[in-house]
Structure formats: structure tokens, C-alpha cells
């Protein structure tokens, strides 16, 4: 699979992207003053529309049935397919936030996070919102806003420490350690980041830089488990970069003093997280989240 495709898939939940477009300003407004549905969705990796088929029941052998468990039939899966696949048409066990608050036949949006995935799915309910039998096909804007907020959460966290944010084109990439004079020969851990330096031309500045500037970006080229989800920019590619100055707890990852010194001398920024390097198509989304944070 091409890296670009993978990154796109990783960072853009298709449903959520569509929902975000559909919701537009309504979603932004909802984020400012979240209604319960938005709040629940923002805290839930699993959101399903379903109907209670049994209360005080469990389909998971590891989970005894209690008055806080119920089995639902899933009508539609709005979030969570990436976790366990699309369970529409199937059943799941829900650990209810508030026991005995829901009855057989009740139809609701269920919001939660996974607990157990065996023969069937079991998730812990953050809450549920009853809906009528004649639900419109469209996803409620408040729910879409919540899902968007959740998907933006890692982006917000990375923006919080980003010094430079921009869309840029990679001019060159080189192995960093060979560029560091006097750097000691060191043994590497199997999790060694294998730092590289990319020279990137700023095409569209979003924070801390200006169009046309050149920025040195340090990124991990390792495909070890700890790094393979961080995109590896190549010459000629265009990405949105959220570059940060070396953080205190990652200085040891800048494996030797030479790399750290290089970063400081060159005013380089580091990208070390999957959300530090996004497809160029995400520029609008990044800009929106920056504005929301202002």
C-alpha cells in the first residue's frame, strides 16, 4: 500500500469527513456549546444506532449478565467500524452507564468504548439517547459534530505544542546523523528513530512561519512499531507539517547530542507523531482547528 494512501486512510474517517462538510458551521457552533449528543460522541469510539433486544443479558461469556448489561441489535454503525468492523445487522452487549434505564424495544443511539471483542462486541456505554422509530436517514448534526471533535482531538493536542504549522513541499531529505560532525558512533536500540532531516519549502503558512520560507524538519525514518505510523516525507511530496521544538521528554529520542544540537542550531522542528505530518488535503481542517482554538 502506498504510504500516501495509508496516511489518508489513517487520518480521515470517511464518514466523519462527509459529516463535517455537511454540518459546517453548525458543527462549529455545537462545539462551542456542546449538546449532550455532541458531548457523548466526542467521548466515544463506538456509536451505534440500535434497539434493545434483551436487558439483564450478556452475549459475552466473560461478562456475567447483570442489571447493567443489555444486548442490542445494531441497526447502523456510525463510529467504531475501524475497531471491530461494521457490525450493522449484528448484536452487541452494552454495559450501561445507568442500570435499568432502558427497556426492551427501546431504540437509541448508544455511545461507548470497547471493553471486549470476542465472538461478539462488548462496549461500555457512555450514555444513550433515545430516538423515535422514524429516524431520518441523515446523521444528526450534533452527533456529527461530536464525532468530528473526537477525530480532531489528536490534532488539537499536536497543535498545542506545534511551533510551525504549514503546508510545504519537501525539497530534499538526508540522513541526519551523517551530517552531524563529531557525533559519536553509538549503538542503536531496535526502536531507534533513524532521524532524517527534510528541507521543506513553505507553500502555505498557518502558524509561525511565512510562505516561501525554508524549514528544516527532523522526522523518524524508522519503520519500527514505534515509528512506522509517522509519515516519511520524500523529496517532491507536499504535506501539512505541525513541527515542534524538541520536547523535554523526547530529547533522549534525539539519540545523540549532535542531533539535538543540530536541531537547535538549524532552528529545525521535529515531527514525531502521526498527526504531525498530514496529507496536504487536510490543510483546511488544520486551519479550522487552529481557529477553533483561538
Amino acid at each position, binding site marked *: *500500500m502506498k504510504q500516501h494512501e*495509508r496516511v489518508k*486512510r*489513517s*487520518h480521515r474517517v470517511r464518514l466523519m469527513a462527509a459529516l463535517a462538510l455537511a454540518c459546517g458551521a453548525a458543527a462549529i457552533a455545537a462545539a462551542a456549546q456542546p449538546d449532550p449528543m455532541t458531548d457523548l460522541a466526542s467521548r466515544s*469510539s463506538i456509536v451505534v444506532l440500535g434497539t434493545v433486544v434483551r436487558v439483564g443479558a450478556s452475549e*459475552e*461469556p*466473560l*461478562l*456475567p449478565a447483570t442489571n447493567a448489561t443489555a444486548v442490542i441489535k445494531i441497526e447502523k454503525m456510525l463510529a467504531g467500524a*475501524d*475497531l*471491530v*468492523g461494521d457490525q450493522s445487522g449484528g448484536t452487541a452487549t452494552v*454495559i450501561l452507564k445507568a442500570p435499568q434505564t432502558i427497556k426492551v424495544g427501546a431504540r437509541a443511539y448508544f455511545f461507548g*468504548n*470497547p*471493553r*471486549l*471483542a*470476542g*465472538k*461478539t*462486541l*462488548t462496549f*461500555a456505554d457512555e450514555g444513550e439517547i433515545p430516538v423515535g422509530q422514524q429516524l431520518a436517514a441523515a446523521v444528526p448534526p450534533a452527533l456529527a459534530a461530536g464525532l468530528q471533535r473526537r477525530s480532531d*482531538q*489528536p*490534532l488539537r*493536542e*499536536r497543535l498545542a505544542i506545534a511551533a510551525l504549522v504549514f503546508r510545504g513541499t519537501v525539497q530534499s531529505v538526508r540522513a541526519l546523523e551523517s551530517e552531524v560532525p563529531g557525533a*559519536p558512533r*553509538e*549503538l*542503536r*536500540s*531496535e*526502536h531507534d528513530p533513524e532521524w532524517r532531516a527534510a528541507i521543506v519549502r513553505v507553500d502555505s503558512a498557518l502558524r509561525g512561519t511565512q510562505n516561501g520560507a525554508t524549514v528544516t524538519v527532523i522526522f523518524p525514518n524508522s*519503520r*519500527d*512499531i*514505534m*515509528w*512506522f*505510523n*509517522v509519515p516519511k516525507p520524500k523529496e517532491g511530496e507536499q504535506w501539512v507539517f505541525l513541527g515542534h521544538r524538541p*520536547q523535554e*521528554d*523526547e530529547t*533522549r*529520542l534525539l*539519540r*545523540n547530542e549532535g542531533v539535538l544540537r543540530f536541531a537547535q542550531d538549524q532552528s529545525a522542528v521535529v515531527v*514525531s*507523531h*502521526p*498527526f504531525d505530518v498530514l496529507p496536504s488535503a487536510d490543510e483546511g481542517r488544520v486551519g479550522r482547528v487552529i481557529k477553533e482554538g483561538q
Partner: protein
Amino acid sequence: MEARDRARARITAILVGVLVMSLGGAAQNRLVNMIPQNRSGERNQDSEPTLAIDPNDYNRMAGSAFTWDNLTQGPMLTATAPIYISVDRGATWTLAYIVPSKMGNGFPTGDINLTFGSTLSGSPLHETSWLYGGILSAVTSGYPMSVLRAQDFQDGATVMATLDTRTGNVDQPHTKALSAIAGAPVGQDKLYVGFNNGYSCVAPNGRTSTLDISQNAKVAAPSFALTLIQSRTTACQDGFAQVPAPHLDGTVYAAFIGDWSGSPRVVVVRDDAWGTGGFTALTDPSDSKPGRFVTTALTLQSGTMGQQRLGASNLSIAVDPRNSDRVYVAYGDSNGANSETIHVRRSIDRGQNWSGDLLSATSAMNPQVAINSLGTVGVLYQRLVSGHWEARLRRTTDADATTFDSPGLLLANTNATTPTGTIASSVYVGDYASLQAAGRNFFGMFSASNYPDTATFLPGVVFQRYVDWASHKLYAEAAHTTEVPLSIDPYFFEADTLAPASDFYVRDWTTDATHADKGVEPSTNPVFYTTSDVWNRRNGSPGPFVNDQPTNQDAGNGSGNAGNNWAFARVRRNVTGPSASVTAHFLVSKFGVGSNYVDSTTGDPDVSFLDPDPVIATGAGAGPWTTSAYHWRLSAIAGNHLCLAVQISTPGSPYIPPSLAGATPGWPTTDLRIVNDNHKAQRNMHLSTTAGASGSVSDYAIVHNGALVTRDMPLRIAVSGISKRYVRNAQLRTIGSQRPATVGAVEAAGLGKTLVVPAVQPGENRWVRVDVEAAGLPAGGTAFVTVEELAGDVPVNGFAVGVRTGDLAGAIRDSLNIYRGEAERLVAGFGGKATEPDIKLRSVATGLAYMRFVRGELVPHLRKDLAAVRERGADAFDLEALLRDVETETSAARVVAKVATLLNALDASLTALQLQRGDPADIVQMVRWQKQLFRQNQKVAQLACAPKVIDASSEFIEGRESGKLTNREYPEHLKRVVSCLREAAGIFGGLEGTDFGALQKEHRAYLLALAR
């Protein structure tokens, strides 16, 4: 050491027979793809697995791998990473999202490694032991090493708690927990996390091999301490893996590859006190520094093999659960470019000396070694053969665990080029696999391609995920509409030496209907001799069960019906299965610790085993089944303070040899013979009946040295369980010592303390008195204290004494029954005349009548008879003082208690006199001792006749251990060796005759002289 090892070799030889028999019969091997059905759409590269098995119940397991919360290895969608859990012995697996991670992060965790402790966590929802983990955490960007804990790994509700965090250049945690079952640390969860602390030359002097240790990780806020286990300066750092291997006796080994960047060598360190001693117990002769070199300098592997990087780990260590002297390591080194060779070596002397390669395999990696309760060594590795990854389990087949089967068990043979490692490609199958031994079986995990082709897996492989075997395709759902690309999956396997359906066992302990021994080896309750499923009754009925515990009755001695006893045992298995014939073999020994068991082959004139061994015809269920009543008798002269044991066997599953006959748990090696073998159980408890809710009694026990060397015998007095509520005070004292206490020895110890009985010679009997004071007992309640014989921190044996309450009439009845037995004993064997054994019990029903009887008959009669007894030996038990004590007491209830103490002392006193005449129970021990002396005593070993003695001894011992000989062959054996004994030690007796006790006594005199 050599003798111990030879002895073990013999035992193992028998075990090989057991193994072969089992493999040919009930063995079943299983392989399960662990991806749950609900995650059939996943395409992760789930590599680098570890498996943990709950020592309290082998049905409970947890596994880890590089497994994301999502199906496609994208950035995390939640803040928890999953682990694999099973509660049905690995038949099915579920993901539980309980490992802390971070939403949006690129990976769930870095390296992850799991282990169970063996104390129950007290979780309200599920019975389980504590689960611990070591991870490189994704929660912060520094990716520290975190130590985790779950109280209930299967509820999926609570994220594992972080107990400790180590930052800096940290790598590759390897965790191992073990719960101490005795001594000061009893019940503590010892947790050892090996990790590389300071790679990339940042550690002072390049010493990076480190253990993060908690001496009790189960407490609310456990403390951890780092121990640097590399004592030498390195060029930059040690290898990435530091692997601990603790043993129940407090020995802890750890292995690492030292000086990775300079002159890399496999190093093993050892600590003999649970890791509190700094791991300095093992030094290398080359520089006298801690850490024994197992190899010369290695050429390290590098590059990749079958899409898998090399050199990141490949180190494993295992210690024999039955004997901490025996330790095995497995490691890898270079086999040329992009290839590795794995090696297995061992030490039988606590790491001092190491063998050459016992096993090696080229083009192989991820060696894992484990040792089961039979002493069989298993090695798992993955080997690249013709473009395929083979996963193979090899097991030793020989007496000394040095020869491995060939080619072993092929678990999988999957394509090494498909699928392509598109992501995280360098950890295609992982830097390590996992192998665990639990009981007699081996369990493990490895990662491999999930291309569904039955021809490439162990027959009977189970995929939980949706698969079409005919078209060799994976699908996301039952309808087989969405095809899923191939990926790397984790696989669980069990290689059975003994199938669960054939694993019949006798419980070592039962607390109540829901908390009891589940047949694990070793069993996990430190008190394994008070509530076991072997018991005695005074009639042919098994009696009632209270709290699912059988009701034991003290043995009776005497003529006629008084000497009749019936033994029972309860047998069960954990799963249903075909019906089988389970044979129960009963044995008894004198009460205390170290006394050798006797059975029908011993020729003890005081004990008769009348019935053939009972055979249970099990149904198809899981039981339990109670044996038919096994009739045995104690003669009039025999004491009735005894231990009772059972060992069961089926055609496919014998007990682990050797038999308890002629032996005692713990010796001649420190085998935990009862707890390590679920086919054996024993009951060593004596209760005295007192009237009312409180009572104080003293009881007496033998301390017999069952070992082959003179030694100090540490005895620890403790109180546990519900007895804590009632026992107010207790004390343990040595009595009748014929030698002054050695320096440092104590003569008495209170609760929680250890009393050392000094310099006990092989076969020597000493006596201890235990005073127990209990109060507040409910009607019919019991309270007891335990006395454990320790080897290091491990109780190799133990006994319990205490009180049971009754009403006054019942207490009087019991008192008089015991008196009858002792009176009859006096008359039968000790010249007693004044006492009538057929006392008229019915006339003594009230307190007043009892007081009158005690003062008017019991005390005077005993005083007269004891005068004759005293002529035979000193009154070490202070019987006269006890008689006066009874005389001066005015309360009937207290008289009952004091008479109980008096009769306990009388019984001990008479037994001590009997033992002075020799003991047939010690015959096998004497021959073992003889053999050892003729091999190890330089002066004696040089005699020309020594080899003949050794051979004759071996023949006798092996014949007795295998059941082919009885003690009837003992006189003949002595005839064969007597001339050499005389040549070596002088003349101490003729060693002729047919009185086994007398022969044993003479024989011992020779051996004592030799030993001097």
C-alpha cells in the same frame, strides 16, 4: 550435588517412561489462531507475542502482541490497547482493552510482556490472580518503561494501573512474577522486570542490564527498586534483553548478553534471597566478578531473515521448578550474513558450570526455554526452512534432560515471504516468541502468516476468524463477502504431555465450595496438609463434608475394632472425558516433619494395610469421585499420631515418581513432592478436643532428618486462615535434645518465628512441643497452628496441631478414647500392668465422674506404668510434671485439656522409645545414605569394594522406588554389603536377622561411623 543429580536422573528416567506413555495415550496438541471472530476484518501485523498463564488456574491466560485497537494499524482510535485473554485454556480468545495507550498515537504500546502472580487478587467479579505487565508506554512521547497491574484482567472495565515508570533510554521489559508460598515473604507477589536501562552509551560505564524489582507488587502502592545486574564495564551497552527466572525457594536467576557492543557473551547472574542480595551469588572465575559467563565471545547476528530483523533479543532462561540448581539458557548468535543459530545450554550446579550446546539449530531464532513439573525441558524456536517459517517445539526425552526429540513437534510451516511486511516490516514475526510450562504441559505463542491452509499448521488448527479453508481466503464476516488480506497473526498452542481429561488429581487444599486447589502444579496454598482430600475415618463411611472439606478422624490403635481405620481420597479432574480407572495408594508416617512414609511394602509391624489399592471407575464427568473405604490397621503398640498420604495413578498418568514410600516430602532433594504433583496429597494434622469455647493444649511432633547430611532444621510456626481469629498464643519448643543447642540456635519460638533444630543427623529423630492457646471458638470449631519445615524459604513439609471444641460430654468421650489407646499401648509393648485397657467408658459420662476417674484411676495407673517406662529411657517429655498438673486442676473442662496434653506427651514418649529400636520406615533412606557415603567420602570411596556397595545400593533404591522390591529384600541387601561396611567402619553389629527395625538401627550405626 552429584548424588542429588544422579538421584534426579533416575527419577527422570522413570519420568521418561511416564512421558512416553502419556504421549502415546492421552496426549493432544492444540493450535489456535488467536484473532477473535469479532475482529475477522483485522489485518494487523500482530507480532512479538508473550503468553502468561494463571498459576492458580490454567484455564486463565493472557497474551500480548503488537495489536492495535483498530483493524488496520492506523493511529490509535482509543486510549486503550488490547490484550488477548482466555478463560478456557486457550480454546477461545477475546480482546480486552485494558492496557494504557493514547488516542491518536502511532502504536498501541512498544514492547509488551505479561505475567501472572500466583496470589488471588480478590477481584469481586472473577477469581483470578494479579496480572502484571511491562511495556514501553505510548502514553508519553518519551516512551518510558512502565510496569502495569490488573486486578481483574477479564472484566475489560479497568485500565491496568501503572505501578512504576522508568524513563530514559529504556528498552525491552521482560516480566516474571512469582508468589512466595512460605517463610517471611509468604503470599507476596515478587515481580521482576528485566530491561535495558541506558542503551546508546548513556549508562555509566556502559552497564545497562537492570532489573526493576518489587518484593510485593500486589499491595496498594508497591515499591520498586532498580538492581544493576551487570558488574562489568562495557564498551557501550549490554544486549537488549534481560530475562529473569525466579524459583519458589527464593533463588532468582537472570540472563543477559553482556557487553553487546564489545565482546558480547551470555551472562547469568543469581540471587538467593528473592533478589534482595544484589545478584552477586554467582561469580565468574576469570575475574571473580558477579555474573557467570555461559559462552565465550559471540559473533552477533545482524541483518534480516525471512523479513524479520535479527539481533534484537533471542535470549531465554528457565529454572527447573523442582530443583533450583538446574537452569537452562537459550540464545542466538550469527550464522553468517542474515542468518542466526540458536543454542541451548544448561547448568546443574546453580549456574557455576555450564554445558556445551545441548541443542542448536541453524537459520533459527526466537528460542524460548521452559521446564515442566516433570523436569522435561521444552524449547520453542522459529526456523527459516525453504522460504517458510517453521515454529517447532522440541522436548527432552532422556533421564537427564539433555537429549531433545527430533524433529520435535511442528506447529506451523508458513510462508516467510507472504504476506509482505508492509508495515513495521522489521518485526515480521517479532523479536521473541513465548513458551511457558504449566504443570506437565507446555503452552506458548508465536506469530506467523495467517494464510489459511491446514497443510501448513498442526493438524486440527482452529481459526476463530472467518476463513474459507478450501479457497484459502480470509473474510471479514460470516457471509464471506468481504475478503481480508493476509497478515501476521498470533497463535496459541498447547503441547500436552497430559491431556486435561486425563489429568486426575487430589486436592491439596479446600477453603470452601468455590475456593480450592484446581490441580495446578505447584499448588498455590502454603498450607497443603490440613484440608486436603485424603482423610481417615473410624468406620467404612467417608463421613460428612463441611465447606466441601472431608471430616478427618484420628487413627485408632489397638486390638480388635479399636485398631481399625479406613482411608479415603477424593479424586477429580477439571474437564469431562472418557471414563478411566484411577488407583489410589495410601501411606502413613509418624506425625511431624521428615518422617518417611510406610506402606504395604515397608514391613512395618505396627501398621497393616489390609485392602488392595482401591480403584475408582470414573464416569465420563469431571468428578469428584471418592475412593471406596481402604481398610488399614494400627496395632496395639502403635502410636496414633500419624500423617496420611495418597498417591493416585491411571494407566496414562502415573504420579510423578518416586513414590512417597520410604521417603518424605522434601528429601533427599528439596523436591516439593506434594505440591508439585497433583497426584499426591497428604494430611498432617492432629487436633485435641477441648470442652467449651477456649482451650490450651500441647502436642508433640517428630522432627526427623530425611536428608542425607547432618543439618540444622528450620521450623517456622505460623497461624493462617480462620484460625487467626481464635489462636491467642502459640509456641514451639525443642524437647529432649540430647545435645546442647548450637550457637545461634533458639530453643523456643513464638508465632511467626523460626525455630532451628540444630545439627540433626540423617535418620535422627528429635521432638518438638507445640503449645496452642485458643479462645472464642464456636461450637465444633477448630483452631490450629502450622509448623513448616523450611528449605530456604520453601516449606517442603509441615504439620498442624490445635484444638477442636466440643461439649464437655464429647470432650470426655474423646479423652477416654485416647486414654484407652494409650493404655492398651502401654500394656502391649511397654510392660504396663496397672492400667486396664478395657476401661469402662460408659460409667464416666459426667464432669464429676470424669474428675473422679482421672484422679482415682488414670493418674495413679499411669504413674505406676510410667515408672517402668522411665527405666527404658529418660522422661524427656516431663510426664511426671504433666501428671501433677492434671492432679491439681479443679475444673473438669481444664482437666480434659490437661489430660489431652498428658496423653499427647505419653504417645510421643512411647513412640520415641519405639524408635530407639530402629524404624523400618527409614530403610530406603539408609541405603541412599550408604550409597552417597561410598561415593562421596573420599576415604571410603577408595575401597575396592566401594563400587559393589554403590551398585547394590542403586539396585535396591531403584527397586524400591519403582515398586519392584519391598523391604523383604533388605536383609539380603545388607548381606551383600556388610563386609564392605565392616571394612570401612569397623564392627557395629551382625546386620543379620529379619527384624527390619533392628537391622535399620544397626545399619545406621555403621553409616554414622562412616560419616564421621
